[in-house]
C-alpha cells in the first residue's frame, strides 16, 4: 500500500495545476479556489481506497472537487457581478503575476450560469474532457450533459458577444 499511496500523491501533485484551473472556473476568487483544491486533495488521500483500479485518477479527483464545490455552494452568495468593487482586491493577482482582464471577464460570465451548465462548460471547454468523461464526473447521462453544455454555451455566447450591453 505504501508505494501505491506514494503513486497517488505524485499523481495528485501532477494534477494540481489542472485542479486549480478547474476550481478557478467555479470559485469566486483565488483563495476560495485554492481552498477547494485543498479539500479535494485531503478527501482524495483520506478515501484513497475508493479509487478503483480501472478508474481514471483525473476523473475521480475532478469529481471530488465538483462535489466539494456543490457542498460549499450552500453558503455561496449570488451577487450581481464578480467585478463588484469590494471583491476586486481578492480577485486580482499579485503584483508580479497580475491578472488578465479577459480571465476576469470569463469568470464573471461563467458565474452567471446555473451551476449545472457552468460545470458542463468548465469540464468540456476549459478542462477538455470528452462528453463521456464529463458526464461521468457529473454523474449524469451523456444526453443530459450535452443539453446542459449547449444551453450554457448559448448563454455565454450572448453574454460575451461584442454587441451585448453592460453586463449587470
Amino acid at each position: 500500500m505504501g508505494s501505491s499511496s506514494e503513486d497517488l500523491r505524485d499523481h495528485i501533485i501532477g494534477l494540481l495545476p489542472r485542479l486549480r484551473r478547474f476550481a478557478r472556473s467555479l470559485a469566486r476568487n483565488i483563495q476560495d479556489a485554492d481552498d477547494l483544491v485543498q479539500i479535494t486533495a485531503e478527501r482524495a488521500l483520506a478515501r484513497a481506497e475508493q479509487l478503483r483500479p480501472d478508474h481514471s485518477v483525473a476523473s475521480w479527483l475532478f469529481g471530488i472537487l465538483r462535489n466539494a464545490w456543490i457542498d460549499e455552494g450552500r453558503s455561496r452568495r449570488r451577487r450581481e457581478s464578480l467585478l463588484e468593487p469590494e471583491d476586486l482586491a481578492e480577485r486580482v493577482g499579485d503584483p508580479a503575476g497580475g491578472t488578465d482582464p479577459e480571465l476576469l471577464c470569463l469568470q464573471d460570465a461563467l458565474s452567471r450560469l446555473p451551476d449545472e451548465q457552468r460545470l458542463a462548460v468548465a469540464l468540456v471547454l476549459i478542462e477538455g474532457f470528452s462528453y463521456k468523461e464529463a458526464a461521468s464526473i457529473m454523474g449524469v447521462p451523456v444526453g443530459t450533459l450535452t443539453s446542459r453544455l449547449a444551453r450554457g454555451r448559448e448563454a455565454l455566447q450572448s453574454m460575451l458577444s461584442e454587441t451585448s450591453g453592460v453586463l449587470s
Partner: protein
Amino acid sequence: MTFPDEVLMAYADDELDARTRAAVEAAMASDPEIARRIAQHKALRSRVHSAFNKVLEEPVPARLLKVVRSNPSGPHKNNVVPLHRRPVRRWAWQQWTAVAASLIVGLIAGRFALVRSRVAGPIVMRGGRVIAGGMLADALSDQLVATQSAAGPVRIGVSFRSKAGEYCRTFALARPAPLAGVACRAGDDWRVRVLARTEWTTGGGADTYRQAASPMPPAVTAAVGNLIAGEPLDAQAEATARGQHWRP
C-alpha cells in the same frame, strides 16, 4: 440538410462519429450559416480555454503541495494521526444574535447600497470586455500626469502609444483596493489590459501614492514593455492626445 445546434456543437468539440461528421462537413460546404455556427462554437471554446490556460502557468501554492505530500493517506492506516480537518463551525447563541443584528444592519445598509450601486465601479464589463468605469474612466480621459493632484483617488503613471497605435495609460487606484493596471483607448472606452495588486501608502492622514517608494507592479511594467511602441508621451504630447480625445 439541417442539424440541431447540439450536433454542430458536438462537431466543434470533435464528438461525432465518422458518419455524422461527414454529413455535417458536406452540409457545411454548401451552407455558410452552418459553417458560421460551427466557427462560433469553436471560437467560444478556444476563447474560454485560452483564458483559463494561464492558470496552469501560475506556481502552485506551497500549502497545496504540503497537504499532498504530508497528509496521511487512508482512514485505517493512520488512525494515530488525526486527519487535518477544517473545524466544523458550531455557533453559539451569541453568534446567532450577532448574525441577526448584522442582518438588520444589512437591511438598512442595503437601502443605501441600492443607491450606491448605480455609480459604476472602476472596473466594469461591457460587451464581453473589461473596461474602466466611473472615476477611473474619468481620470484616464481627463487627468494629465503633469497636473494631477497627489491627493486624487486615481494616479496616472505614464501614457504611451501601443504598437497597434492606440493610446494607453498606466493607472493606480487606492479604492476600492490598491490596484494598478494598464488601460488602452478603444472607441469611447478604456479597455483594461492588465490589473495587479499594488501598494498605496498612507501618509500624513491622507492617502498619497508614493511613486518613488512603490513603483509599478512588475505585472504592469511587463505589460507596458509588451505594448509600447517608442517612448512614453511627454507632457506636451499627452496634452495634445487628450485634446483629441485619445483618438489615434
